[in-house]
């Protein structure tokens, strides 16, 4: 592994362990009083266990994502500067997720204590606290610890998903690897998370054995294992972190190759100038911009059409120049975010078909497509069908397809290739367009806005924005497509950093 790779892994591992431990601690602090209060209050037990069970049925990813609007709501209602991305939502969601096994274990452990033992503890004159610590808790320890171990393993696993809400974790490696089809990186992220979970489980298991048998030895060994794990991970991170103490410039990326490549391009550039840089990769599309607004990320790469609809909430279509002017003005006014550069290429939503099918059906433009659409199947990315662009296309062309299905972006080109779809949503800078036998259909009624690639800079980072202005107009679409293809092509695949180096040479940005 290279130096930056090791730094990324050790950083992700340290952050992963940190967020998991904090979430588990929070869950234990919440669960403990509930467990102790529940036996005497059946109504409390019903409510708490019911609620925890409902939470468990929500997929972990959805739970993490739901905390974003919830915290935004809290911020708007209270006026307090509550962060809605990164650490806080991850901590809350993971803690909530860990609650059920802790409550089950705790309540089950206490309920399993024989009545005669409780009675004897009172009868010999133990105080309430003595009964709690010396009888109830230590007798319940095996079941309680069983719950704690389950909660720990779940939390460490679910923490990989915290990447999607902007919290650094081992999920960074997994999501970036999935997108780039870099299976080595995916495996590294998964194996590290699994290893972490197994060591924590074993350590807690030893502590459990010690408490249950009232033997100090195994408990101390277990605590030692956990302490060594924490110290080792933190030490490794400390040792391999970038040397500079200055706060790094944080570049955020969404989950596709173009974003990884551009982030590497800018990072290499800034590092040459002596600035430390960190890349936060794999953010959800909407969350990436929100992170820039919140200042958790200094530089984001976004698209004018996306910001137009998602950040400004507009559905009208305007000429490119006018749209950019409004974006510059309104993003500044509403979010204090600066557009530092328009990179020079567009990554627009477009509809595409296989060349031979398009020719056979006589389809060149989307208005041609409307005629034959009822016999065709449409494959879209995961978000297209709920985006404003789809509504705009339907309005402008009256499009109706025989079937619609959502795919992960990397699989869409394959879907049209093997005939499981006739029409796909494509991105105009997609590397595959430079080779695949597909044609983009012209938006002849101008229903879709422009998608100029932009560098957006967080509030208060004006010097950085000026520095990045040199990218304005420097990356033509052909160069971007070719660079994307280097990272996406099935054979002789390059890393985003290598593709970025190629792009820098190609565009003279070295």
């Amino acid at each position: 592994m290279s130096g930056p790779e090791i730094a990324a892994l050790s950083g992700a591992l340290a952050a992963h362990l940190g967020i998991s431990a904090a979430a588990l601690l929070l869950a234990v602090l919440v669960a403990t009083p509930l467990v102790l209060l529940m036996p005497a209050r059946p109504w409390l037990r019903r409510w708490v266990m019911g609620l925890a069970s409902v939470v468990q049925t929500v997929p972990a990813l959805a739970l993490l994502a739901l905390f974003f609007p919830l915290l935004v709501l809290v911020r708007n209602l209270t006026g307090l500067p509550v962060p809605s991305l990164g650490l806080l939502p991850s901590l809350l969601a993971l803690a909530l997720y860990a609650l059920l096994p802790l409550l089950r274990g705790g309540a089950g452990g206490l309920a399993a204590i024989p009545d005669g033992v409780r009675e004897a503890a009172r009868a010999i004159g133990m105080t309430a606290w003595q009964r709690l610590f010396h009888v109830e808790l230590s007798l319940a320890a095996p079941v309680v610890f069983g719950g704690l171990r389950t909660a720990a393993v779940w939390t460490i696993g679910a923490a990989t998903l915290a990447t999607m809400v902007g919290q650094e974790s081992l999920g960074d490696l997994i999501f970036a690897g999935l997108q780039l089809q870099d299976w080595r990186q995916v495996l590294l992220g998964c194996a590290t998370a699994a290893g972490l979970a197994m060591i924590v489980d074993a350590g807690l298991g030893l502590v459990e054995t010690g408490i249950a048998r009232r033997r100090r030895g195994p408990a101390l060994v277990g605590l030692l294992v956990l302490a060594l794990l924490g110290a080792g991970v933190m030490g490794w991170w400390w040792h391999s972190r970038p040397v500079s103490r200055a706060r790094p410039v944080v570049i955020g990326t969404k989950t596709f190759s173009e974003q990884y490549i551009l982030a590497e391009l800018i990072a290499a550039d800034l590092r040459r100038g002596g600035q430390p840089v960190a890349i936060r990769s794999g953010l959800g599309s909407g969350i990436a911009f929100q992170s820039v607004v919140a200042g958790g990320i200094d530089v984001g790469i976004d698209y004018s059409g996306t910001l137009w609809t998602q950040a400004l909430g507009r559905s009208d279509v305007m000429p490119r120049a006018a749209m950019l002017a409004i974006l510059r003005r309104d993003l500044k006014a509403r979010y204090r975010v600066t557009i530092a550069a328009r990179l020079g290429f567009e990554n627009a939503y477009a509809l595409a078909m296989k060349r031979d099918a398009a020719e056979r059906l006589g389809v060149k433009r989307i208005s041609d497509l409307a005629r034959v659409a009822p016999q065709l199947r449409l494959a879209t990315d995961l978000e297209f069908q709920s985006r404003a662009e789809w509504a705009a296309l339907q309005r402008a062309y009256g499009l109706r397809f025989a079937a619609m299905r959502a795919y992960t972006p990397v699989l869409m080109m394959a879907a049209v290739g093997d005939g499981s779809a006739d029409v796909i949503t494509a991105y105009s800078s997609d590397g595959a367009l430079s080779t695949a036998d597909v044609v983009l259909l012209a938006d002849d009624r101008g229903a879709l806005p422009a998608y100029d690639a932009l560098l957006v800079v967080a509030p208060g980072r004006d010097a950085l924005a000026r520095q990045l202005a040199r990218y304005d107009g420097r990356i033509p679409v052909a160069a971007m497509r070719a660079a994307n293809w280097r990272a996406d092509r099935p054979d002789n695949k390059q890393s985003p950093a290598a593709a970025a180096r190629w792009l820098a040479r190609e565009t003279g940005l070295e």
Partner: protein
Amino acid sequence: MRAGNPPPLCHKDGVTQTPFLACRNVQLSLGGRPVLAGIDLAVPAGTLVALVGASGAGKTSLLRLINRLLDPDAGTIAIEGQDIASRDSVAVRRGIGHAVQGGGLFPHWTVADNITAVPWLLGWPRAQRQARALELMAMLELPTRLAMRFPHELSGGQASRVGLARALAASPRLLLLDEPFGALDPETRDALADRLLALHRAQGLTTLIVTHDLADALLRADLMLVLDQGQIVASGPPAAIVAHPHPAVQALLAAPLAQARAIAGLVPR
């Protein structure tokens, strides 16, 4: 017995004295159901009292009241003339040896730790606790090698002895035993009952024992109390109980007496 009657058995050796344990018109209901309806009782120091009666008659509840695990709805309980309601409940319990039904040994504590639970609560130093554990184990004929074992490693008889040892550990003057030999085979039960009787006499204890073993009660107790539906329907020395006309008493005695006669008939003369 009714409220206001003089408490029974206030006399010993013809001398009137303050009873060691006295209950006056003690009433208790649990969950709206009457459990004890006016218990009057006076137990002289050094007496071995057997509480007998059908299940649900209120025997266990009476022991729990005396150890302040419950508080009565009405009436008073006094030990050595002092009303227990006026004392701290934890202090009352530490001063009484109470072996609860089923033993209630702490499964995660060693035999030695179980035995010296009350001395530990009272803050005895470690060495003294260890010595006391060994002393009690010897007294109850428990092999020393069991000291570091856990309750699940013990036989039923051994567990009963440990329960008894735990009740005796801090040298209480009053012993409350709730079916201490309930789950034992007759031979072990008999041996242990003899051991208990010897300890009771040797240490001058006042002992209340709840038992379903009528033969044990009749043969060893100084005084028997028959409870029926929350009331004491008969009290007195075993010889008086055997002749008591109350139907509940006769019902209780019918089976063991018939068995004893039948067994006697089998024995060759």
